[in-house]
């Protein structure tokens, strides 16, 4: 390569990067691939956290529920955790997906910080996460009694998110629930 041409390499790399950034502007990192909203929860059979038996999709059905993706390595999950406990105390059904985590760490976390979950699915390799299109923890799905995904929230669920977004949807699915 001629020496002068070599000097164009940084410019070329930057052009590629800029194209990606341009594309990135149109994408919403928080948006669910729309394919999954109002579609059934994917099938899965995964171990339950601290349980002998496996959990399948069928175990999660019957009531409208929140499906919370969490991990002990996730900063925001720690912030979110106390609020999930409040929701659980109010009677909201919450299932956990322990995402790419160590079982021992996860069990210790629940023991120390309290356990708002009805059950926890162990998604150690993130396979269920891939099917769901998990972007990162924490992430919370609202699933109805028939197992249809109604809403996906990326990020921490707090009082504001619950009151303004999730609760109205939840009460539509489960009248009288989540007082």
């Amino acid at each position: 390569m001629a020496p002068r041409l070599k000097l164009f390499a940084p410019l070329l790399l930057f052009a590629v990067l800029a194209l990606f950034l341009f594309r990135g502007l149109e994408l919403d990192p928080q948006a669910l691939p729309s394919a999954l909203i109002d579609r059934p929860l994917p099938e899965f059979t995964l171990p339950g956290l601290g349980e002998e038996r496996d959990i399948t999709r069928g175990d999660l059905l019957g009531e409208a529920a929140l499906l919370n993706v969490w991990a002990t390595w996730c900063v925001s999950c720690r912030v979110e955790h106390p609020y999930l406990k409040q929701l659980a105390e109010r009677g909201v059904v919450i299932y956990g997906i322990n995402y790419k985590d160590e079982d021992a760490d996860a069990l210790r976390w629940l023991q120390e910080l309290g356990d708002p979950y009805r059950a926890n699915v162990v998604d150690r390799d993130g396979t269920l996460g891939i099917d769901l299109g998990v972007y990162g923890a924490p992430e919370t799905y609202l699933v109805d009694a028939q197992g249809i995904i109604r809403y996906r929230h990326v990020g921490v669920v707090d009082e504001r998110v619950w009151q303004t977004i999730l609760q109205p949807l939840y009460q539509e699915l489960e009248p009288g629930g989540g007082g």
Partner: protein
Amino acid sequence: MIPEIGHFALIIGLCLALFLAVVPAWGAWRRDPVAMGVAPSLAVGMLVFVGISFACLCIAFLQDDFSVKVTAANSNSLLPPIYKFSAVWGNHEGSLLLWALILCVWTAAVALLSPQLPLLVLSRVLAVMGAIAVGFMSFSLFTSNPFERLLPGMPADGSDLNPLLQDPGLIIHPPLLYMGYVGFSVAFAFAIAALLGGRLDASWARWSRPWTNVAWGFLSLGIMLGSWWAYYELGWGGWWFWDPVENASFMPWLAGTALIHSLAATEKRGVFKSWTVLLAIFAFSLSLLGTFMVRSGVLTSVHAFATDPARGMFILLFLAFVVGGSLTLYALRAPAVSSRVGFAWVSRESLVLVNNVVFLVATLTVLFGTLFPLFMDALGQGKYSVGPPYFNAVFVPLMALLVPFMGLAPMSRWKRDDTARWRAELAVPAVLAVLCAVTLPLVQAEYNLWVALAVLLAAWLVVGLVRDFWYRVRGSRSVSRAMRRLTPSYLGMVLAHLGFAACIIGVVATSQYSIERDLKMSPGDSEQLAGYTFTFRELAPVRGPNFVADEARIAVTRDGEPVADLAPQKRRYLASGSVMTEAAIDPGLFRDLYVAMGEPIGEGGAWAIRLHYKPMVRWMWLGAILMGMGAFTTALDKRYRRQRKAARSHATEALHGA
């Protein structure tokens, strides 16, 4: 009225910036001394008007003028005045104005403090900075006007500053960080001026070195403050999360670290010229990229600002213009042939090269990890997140690889050195470092290999530095005479490298030895942690200026001796209703005791309480402070002042000659 004055002043600032970008550049092209000569006054004028604009925004916040949109959204009449002031930059619009103001401060500083610069170079440098200022001021005025009014329909009170930001650390964190970020624009402007002039010699490296070092020092301190804030304010004792916004500030720091070393080699030996120019462009481009990532919403992050696609598009176009333009200029003008100055493989130049390779790889690693979710999303491969495991797995070995060479560098010689000499000189430090690594971790009951490795690396640096220092000052009759032998450049390097060693120890010791327990405690309960007894004495309601809180009063004792009284709080802020954890910390050089309140459990007054024992966590922040101080020290070097005197007498001669 005052917000309108601010708005108007910002418009005048933008006009001055336009003049600054165009007139001196035209003057430099036509060799017109009058057009070139207006550059410094335009730079100062720009600072004055943007300063007025910023002051007006501050007044709007301090006077609770809730007819201004950002004030209504980010302040509250109950907010303590100091936080009303820091709320000015606790939001997108205000922080962007701060960005512009700091850019003006740097531009005016270059204009006023550079009498040694030839007018031709100075006018080009200031024109480049003016062009950057045009970009940022129009960004502020056209997409995020901080003076926008809410009229009619002004709210009775503001909706308050995010309680996380109501903190002393956050008052100075953004200004320091921006001083660093924006400071790299000076190195960038010098690089562009050198490319435009077609003369890449040692002098441009000498001119831009003190500016680059100072900017890097500010950035080090800014990042340190951010980490410290996260540690005590987020309430669970973490200090670095590899969050996209943190990475946005860390990448320019990494590239800047490569730059300050490469600049040294270019100044002293005239090597790596094109490479150094590229690094200067790279460091500032990463600052701009960071701004893009934080303000465009392309990545999810805990501290991203409220975003808007128009803003993202604006910065992207600006980024394309600045980075694309400068890289094109680089491709066309940088010397394509390698410099004639040679150096042997065993030499200080090679060690600088190792530094550059390591830091560049580290920068690209962080860049790749940060943008990976975006790449995959754009390619239709689905949503991904990259977590700390990736960054730690790549970053930690890289830094460990760096340190052996880093210990060699201070005693190495430029151009050609000799491995036999290295072996002779470094036998003692090597033995001492191994001794330290074997013995020091024994202080703890359990021998920890990671800590031993960290001690080995840090001791290698420290002993090497101390030995080199001793060789330079020995034989001097008095302390003052010994100090006179050492240049500020050298002292700054020693400080910064010691700081790096302290960071290694702090990071590894606190990661390995920290103990944390989440407990249920009722008043009267006692718990043990790392030999300390924590007694929950009472729970008391407390009222602050704009919050109410539950305060747990906890007495800490060790072997019956009182150590500290800690009072963590759980606050509810009145305006927003948000609940915040305020941790209580007993700091110490060798350990922090850290208590945070979780949630109340049951009716009996019991609380979830989190106790942490964090050994040597302060060392990494002290290390960063040392690095910052070291960088500032180097800028005091007489070399830069002597230059000025010489230039002045030269100028006088020229005047008399004419």
